[in-house]
């Protein structure tokens, strides 16, 4: 089987014939909130398996492309058999990484807690790819900046004695946010030791993925397709998962993550202070800009804080959808871009460390490394 040379731009690195994008088609994306848990994902056990899944290649396809039997590949992936140097070189070529990537290939990958927003129809192969992407990314990032320690703490809802909103207020306190808006959520998370990357997730039909590895800080991959209005809420939602949940994510936990995000971005006490009685659309723009949330989320806050009744809330939603504003909101927000990783790379370069060396540490070819971690985002 002839696998075309892998292109290492993030949006193109999947072999076209087997791409998840092709499997899923280009359905209209809808923001939905279903989490998966470790129980749903088959966590890859070795670097080889992780890389293969991340590339969207099956064992059968890799066997056909390399001439190595599937049975042997399976044994290598499970760590019971090792390849010789020549076979590692063949595998490395097919999967588009330097052969040095497989030094220590049988070391187990850490099983991360993974949370993300997906459609119910997202196939299991895509979920497995998500987990593999995340595990690889985390390992690669750690090779650049070292294991990230976070100032975030996990919280327990104690079977309902605490609410997600209450925990959001505690986390705001822990991050010394005071009562005001979070001006740059990405920067705040990066300061707290969270790795944030914008990532091509649209084809996987997810807005964002988050993981909190047991030995380091959380990682959040935010879909490049997510508009600025939704990006902040999505990240805060993932942050909620990270600090609140450690088991199988249920629909109720998705709602908890939403409640966390709403309170984290715009605390109820501030909503009450800033709300305008019987607001016009124009009255909401300054509040939207100041607190960095979408009009839809703002209206929901008004409803949840008892400032809009059922009829008013329904009326606002009809207005937003009938005018198309729920898709393209007026008074748009500026997107927030991650900076910490590029800054770390720049610092390393300033000390004489080359991109080639950084790429090697990340088990990547320099072209893929540059495309993955150094591209400007909009």
């Amino acid at each position: 089987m002839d696998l075309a040379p892998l292109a290492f731009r993030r949006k193109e690195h999947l072999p076209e014939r087997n791409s998840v994008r092709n499997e899923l088609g280009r359905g209209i994306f809808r923001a939905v909130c279903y989490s998966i848990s470790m129980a749903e994902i088959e966590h890859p056990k070795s670097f080889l398996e992780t890389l293969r899944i991340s590339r969207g290649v099956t064992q059968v396809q890799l066997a056909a492309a390399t001439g190595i039997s599937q049975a042997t590949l399976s044994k290598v992936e499970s760590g019971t058999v090792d390849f010789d140097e020549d076979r590692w070189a063949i595998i490395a070529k097919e999967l588009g990484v330097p052969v040095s990537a497989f030094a220590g290939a049988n070391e187990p990958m850490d099983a991360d807690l993974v949370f993300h927003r997906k459609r119910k129809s997202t196939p299991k192969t895509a979920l497995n790819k998500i987990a593999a992407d995340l595990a690889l990314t985390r390992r690669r990032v750690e090779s650049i900046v070292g294991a990230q320690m976070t100032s975030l703490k996990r919280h327990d809802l104690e079977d309902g004695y605490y609410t997600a909103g209450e925990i959001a207020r505690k986390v705001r306190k822990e991050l010394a946010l005071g009562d005001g808006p979070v001006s740059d959520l990405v920067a705040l998370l990066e300061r707290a030791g969270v790795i944030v990357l914008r990532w091509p997730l649209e084809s996987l039909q997810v807005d964002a993925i988050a993981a909190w590895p047991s030995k380091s800080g959380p990682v959040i991959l935010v879909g490049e397709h997510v508009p600025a209005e939704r990006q902040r809420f999505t990240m805060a939602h993932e942050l909620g998962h990270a600090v609140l949940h450690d088991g199988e994510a249920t629909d109720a936990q998705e709602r908890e993550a939403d409640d966390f995000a709403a309170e984290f971005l715009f605390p109820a006490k501030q909503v009450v202070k800033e709300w305008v009685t019987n607001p016009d659309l124009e009255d909401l723009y300054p509040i939207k800009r100041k607190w960095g949330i979408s009009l839809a989320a703002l209206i929901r806050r008004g409803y949840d804080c008892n400032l809009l009744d059922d009829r008013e809330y329904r009326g606002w939603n009809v207005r937003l959808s009938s005018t198309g504003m729920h898709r393209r909101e007026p008074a748009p927000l500026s997107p927030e871009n991650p900076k910490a990783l590029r800054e770390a790379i720049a610092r390393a370069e300033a000390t004489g460390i080359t991109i080639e060396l950084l790429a090697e540490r990340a088990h990547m070819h320099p072209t893929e490394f540059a495309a993955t971690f150094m591209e400007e985002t909009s």
Partner: protein
Amino acid sequence: MSQFNVIDNANLPSTTVPAAPRTVEVGEARNLITDRQWHVTGENHADAAALVTPTHSGLFLVGENSRRHAADLRTQYPNIPFITEPQALRGHWADEDAPFAVPDGHGGFDITMPLEAMLDRQRLGGNPLAMTPTGQIRVGDSEALKAVIEAANDLDRDDVLVAVPLAANWLSKQPLTDQVIKVLNRSRHPIALTFTDGKGPLESMVRTRAHRRLIASVTVGILAYRIDLNGFDAIAQGALASAIGAYPSKRRLEPVDAKSFGPKDREALSPQMLIPDMLRIVRSTEMRRKWFISAPPMDCFCMVCGGAPIDRLHESTPERAAGHRHNVLSIERLASTLLGTPQSQRAAVWAGLVNGALDTYPQLESHLGRPMRIPNDLGVWGEPTG
């Protein structure tokens, strides 16, 4: 004899069940509250005191002069407990740092006085128990809710009734209701639980169901306070008692900053009439305009109505007062049926009353010659619990 000539709830006795004589258990909040039917009164306090059964009733008095009125009534009716409602329930927002407040004498509130002193002041004023002067708790303000319970738990006395006035939206989201259950279950004292809303706090089925679940899950002793007929459902679910108002403003708490506007239609001031057989409260205007347009009105044979049409009353002060007296008697009739039953049988008795109420609809439909819509709350009360 049935109370009405058109309908009859077969499971609702026509006479009240006699109760054993009972003194006012001064200083023992839990005993005092339990198994009494409480009435939340304002301008109708004197009328209500004259109508209630001393052996199993009590009054909460609301308003600027409630202390003076309560003192007068205590002299007149020594076997009826009278409690004045703290103003903070109507005028103060609770927060984590200032959950309680008392009037400062200048139109504002003093939040610096220790809670113990606030409660002592109530007892010195003649109240048989001390109701915490709790401010209204905004939806989701978990810290304020916990501050109320924690501060009350620090009190080592038996005369405390912890008032917990929550925004009605606490009942709209399951995690919030769950938290209320968890927090209230940590209380050492009985709780007067009420909900604030500009309209009906328990108007939606979601909230009615959540309220049911909450009452059934809180085990520390609940007085369902400032409530409508859901108060009887609360008793069936295990509440110690309920405190129901004879008119709308005494069946709920208005949010602190709510602006109230008088009705455009003066007729809308005509009294809301409790029809115990139907477990329903209907404004007499609505009955005149919608129910009995082409059929003769239903007659009520309670002590106040004396066989007159149930829809006869208009907005004048004497007519409104008559409607409120009818309601006090109707509340007493329902309460007697429930409270005269051992606690373990109250859910079954209530289920019977609800079934009987559902049966009154075909009776009324036959009289009116058209279908009637069954209210949401009656439907929820008919649902199985637990």
